[in-house]
C-alpha cells in the first residue's frame, strides 16, 4: 500500500491511498508537521547525529586505552571525550531514543487514536530538544567540557576551565523538550484511548511508556534547577554548593541524582516495554502475568525515586542513609526480576521464531539480567566501597543502557520498520547484525567488569600495564560493536528503495498499529477501531497445537 516515487506525480491512483509519508513532500511539510509519526522520524534523524558524535568520542577513548601509556590524547582531551560521550549519549540519545522516536510513532496507533493529545506541543518539543542539542554541540565544537556528565561541584562551578555553561544550558533547555513529551504521552494515554481500550487492555509498551513519562515530568525539572544553581554559582561566584562559601557539594550530588537515578529508569523502562511486545509476538503467546508486568513498570517508576542515595555511599553520606538507600535499591530488583521471569515464562513452550527483533529481545533479556545483577553488587554498601569509580560501575551501567536500552531500541526499530517505512529490511542481514552487536557488546564490556574488580579506576587515559590485556579485548569488542551499528544503518537506508514492500501486518502481530496500512495514513485509521478484548491474543489454536504436538514433531516443524 505504498505510494512510490515511480507512481505518477500528477494523478494519484485511487487504489494507492495517501500515506503519512506522501501527505506532503516539501521540507516545510516536515518541519511544520504536527503528525506524531513524522515527528517520531524527525527525532530519529536528529538522534542519529548526536549518537554518531558521541560514538566517535567513545571510539577515540577506546583507541587511547589500547596502550597503558597516555600516548594518543592528553588527559584534558580525554576528560572532554568522556564528557562528550556521556552527556550526548544520556541526554541527546538514550533519553529520547525509544520514547521520542518509537513512542511518538506507535503510542497513538496502539491506543487507536488519530494523534497525540497536543500535536503542536509535540512539534515544539522537537524544536526545544534541538535548540538544547545545538547548544551542547556548540560547547563540543568550541572547546568541550571536562566535568564528566555528572557536573559535580565545586569542580564544575569553580575550577573547570571549559564550556560548562553552554553544555548545562543545552541540557537545561533540552530537558523541557523531554518534559513536554512526557506530559503529552500522559494525557494521550489518559484521554485518547479508543472505545473499549481499557487500562488493562493496553499493550505493555504503553504501561512502560506511561511510567517513563511520569518520571520525565517529575524528575527532569529537578535537574533543570540543579544545573541552574550550579551555573549561578559559576557565573556570579556566589555560594550555593561551594564549601568555601558555606555551601555543601553533597547537596548538589543529592539533587543531581534525585533526577539522574530516576532518569536511569527513563533509559530502561521503554526498552522493557518494547521487549514485552517482541517476546509475545515471536513466541506466539499471551504474555505471562500481564498485570504483574504492567504494575512492575509502575513500581519501578515509583521506587526509582527513592534510591538516588546509592550514588553517594562514599561521598560523605551518613551510614544510616547508606543502609536505607541500599535496602531500597535492592527493592527495585523485585519488579525488574518479575519482568524477566515473566518474559521467560512467556517463552516457555511458545512457538518461538528467531526473526531479527526477537534476537534483539532475547539479547536484551540476557544483557539486562547481567546488568541488573551487577547492580545488586553495587547496591551493597560494603562492595560498593571497593568498586566505586572503577570500570565495574562503567560495565554495569553499559550493560543496562547499551545492552538493555540500545538493544531494545534496535529490536523495536526492526519490528516497526515495516510500519514506519512500508518496506521490509533484509532479514538475513538483520539477524547477522544482531549477532555481531551481541558479540561485540559482550567483548567490549565484560572485560570491564574484571578490570573494575581488579581496581582499574574509570576516567583515566593511562593505566597500569597489567590491565592492558582486558583493555585490548574491550577495544577490539568496540570495533566489532561499531560494525554491528553500521550494518543496520546501511541496510535500513538501502531498504527504503529496494526493500520488499511490507504488508499491513508482516509479523502477524496483535496490536492496533498492525490493523492499519503500512505506512499508515495521516490520521492512522480509516475509522476509529473498537477494542473488544485483552492484548496479545496470539492465536489460541496455534499455541494449542504447538503445546500438544509431541516434542519431536515440534522440533521437526521448526
Amino acid at each position, binding site marked *: 500500500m505504498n505510494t512510490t516515487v515511480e507512481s505518477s506525480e500528477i494523478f494519484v491512483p485511487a487504489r494507492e491511498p495517501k500515506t503519512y509519508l506522501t501527505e506532503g513532500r516539501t521540507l516545510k511539510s516536515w518541519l511544520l508537521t504536527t503528525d506524531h509519526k513524522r515527528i517520531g522520524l524527525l527525532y530519529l534523524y536528529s538522534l542519529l547525529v548526536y549518537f554518531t558524535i558521541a560514538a566517535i568520542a567513545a571510539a577515540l577513548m577506546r583507541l587511547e586505552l589500547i596502550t597503558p601509556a597516555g600516548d594518543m590524547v592528553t588527559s584534558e582531551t580525554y576528560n572532554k571525550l568522556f564528557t562528550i560521550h556521556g552527556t550526548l549519549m544520556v541526554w541527546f540519545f538514550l533519553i529520547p531514543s525509544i520514547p521520542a522516536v518509537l513512542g511518538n510513532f506507535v503510542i*497513538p496507533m496502539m491506543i487507536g487514536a488519530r494523534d497525540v493529545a497536543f500535536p503542536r506541543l509535540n512539534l515544539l518539543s522537537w524544536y526545544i530538544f534541538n535548540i538544547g542539542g545545538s547548544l551542547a554541540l556548540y560547547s563540543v565544537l568550541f572547546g568541550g567540557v571536562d566535568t564528566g556528565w555528572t557536573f559535580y561541584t565545586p569542580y564544575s562551578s569553580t575550577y573547570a576551565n571549559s564550556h560548562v555553561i553552554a553544555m548545562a544550558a543545552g541540557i537545561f533547555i533540552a530537558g523541557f523538550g523531554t518534559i513536554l513529551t512526557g506530559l503529552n504521552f500522559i*494525557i494521550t494515554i489518559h484521554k485518547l484511548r479508543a472505545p473499549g481500550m481499557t487500562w488493562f487492555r493496553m499493550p505493555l509498551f504503553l504501561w512502560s511508556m506511561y511510567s517513563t513519562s511520569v518520571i520525565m515530568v517529575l*524528575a527532569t525539572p529537578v535537574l533543570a*534547577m540543579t544545573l541552574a544553581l550550579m551555573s549561578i554559582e559559576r557565573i556570579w561566584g556566589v555560594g*550555593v554548593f561551594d564549601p568555601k*562559601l*558555606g*555551601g*555543601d557539594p553533597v547537596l548538589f550530588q543529592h539533587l543531581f541524582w534525585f533526577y539522574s537515578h530516576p532518569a536511569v529508569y527513563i533509559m530502561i523502562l521503554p526498552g522493557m516495554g518494547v521487549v514485552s511486545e517482541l517476546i509475545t509476538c515471536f513466541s506466539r503467546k499471551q504474555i505471562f502475568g500481564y498485570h504483574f508486568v504492567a504494575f512492575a513498570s509502575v513500581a519501578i517508576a515509583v521506587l526509582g525515586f527513592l534510591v538516588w542515595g546509592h550514588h553517594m555511599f562514599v561521598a560523605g553520606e551518613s551510614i544510616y542513609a547508606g543502609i536505607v538507600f541500599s535496602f531500597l535499591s535492592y527493592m527495585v530488583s523485585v519488579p525488574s526480576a518479575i519482568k524477566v521471569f515473566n518474559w521467560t515464562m512467556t517463552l516457555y513452550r511458545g512457538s518461538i521464531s528467531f526473526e531479527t527483533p526477537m534476537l534483539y529481545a532475547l539479547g536484551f533479556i540476557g544483557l539486562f539480567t547481567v546488568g541488573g545483577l551487577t547492580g545488586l553488587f553495587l547496591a551493597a554498601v560494603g562492595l560498593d566501597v571497593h568498586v566505586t569509580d572503577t570500570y565495574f560501575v562503567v560495565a554495569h551501567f553499559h550493560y543496562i543502557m547499551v545492552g538493555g536500552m540500545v538493544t531494545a531500541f534496535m529490536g523495536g526499530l526492526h519490528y516497526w520498520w515495516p510500519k514506519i517505512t512500508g518496506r521490509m529490511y533484509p532479514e538475513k542481514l538483520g539477524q547477522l547484525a544482531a549477532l555481531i552487536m551481541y558479540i561485540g557488546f559482550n567483548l567490549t564490556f565484560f572485560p570491564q567488569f574484571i578490570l573494575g574488580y581488579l581496581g582499574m579506576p574509570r576516567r583515566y587515559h593511562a593505566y597500569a600495564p597489567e590491565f592492558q590485556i582486558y583493555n585490548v579485548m574491550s577495544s577490539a569488542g568496540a570495533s566489532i560493536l561499531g560494525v554491528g551499528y553500521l550494518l543496520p544503518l546501511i541496510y535500513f537506508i538501502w531498504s527504503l528503495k529496494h526493500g520488499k514492500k511490507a504488508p499491513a501486518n508482516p509479523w502477524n502481530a496483535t496490536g492496533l498499529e498492525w490493523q492499519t496500512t503500512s505506512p499508515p495514513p495521516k490520521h492512522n485509521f480509516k475509522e476509529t477501531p473498537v477494542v473488544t478484548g485483552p492484548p496479545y491474543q496470539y492465536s489460541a489454536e496455534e499455541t494449542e497445537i504447538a503445546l500438544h504436538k509431541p516434542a519431536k514433531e515440534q522440533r521437526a516443524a521448526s
Partner: protein
Amino acid sequence: MNNPPTALQDQFVEMPQQKEAATLGMWTFLATEVLFFGAMFMSYITYRTAYPRAFALASHHTILLFGTINTAILLTSSLTMALAVQAAKESNSRWLFRFLVATVLFGVAFLGVKGLEYHQDIADHLWPGPHFKSGLPPEAQIFWVLYWIMTGVHALHVTVGIVLLSIMALMARRQKFSGAYYTPVENSGLYWHFVDVIWIFLYPLLYLIHRYAA
C-alpha cells in the same frame, strides 16, 4: 493555528474530551513546576537546618512591609482570577474582561513593589558577593543567594502569568469565550493560583523566620 480555538481538533472525538485533556495537561504541567521549585526549597531546607542562626539573622534584613503588601496583592489577585473564571462560566464577557484586567494589574503591582524592594536590597548591600553587607555571618550569604534565586524565579513566573492573562483578556474582549468554551481562562487561572501558592510558601520562609524571637 489552523482551527479556531473553539473548534474540536482532529485528534479528539468530542468537546468534553478535549477540555479534560487540556485541564489534565495543565495539572501535569503544574506537577512539573512543583518539582522545579522543589529543588530550591530542598536547598533552602538543607541550609536552614545547617545554619539556623545565620538564616534567622539574615532574614531580619528582608523588608517585611514590602513582603506583606505583596502577599496581600497576590492573594487579592487570586480572588479576582477566581471571579474571572466564574464570569466566564456565566458567559459574562464584560465582567470576565474586567476581572482579567484587574488580575493583570495586581500582577503588575506585585512586580512594581518587588522592584522597589530589590532596589532597596541592593542599596543595603544584600546582593551576595565581595560587597556583601558586613557584620553578618558568612553563611548568611547563602540565605541571600536563595532569596534572590527563589523570588527571581517566582517573579519570572508572575511575568509569564501577566502575559498569559493579558492574552486571555484580549481574547475575552473579542468574545472568544462563553459558558460552553472557557478552558484557556480556567487553565490560565490554575497557573495563576499556582504562582500565588508558591508565594504563600516563600513569604514565611524568607520574611518571617524568628521575626519576633530574636
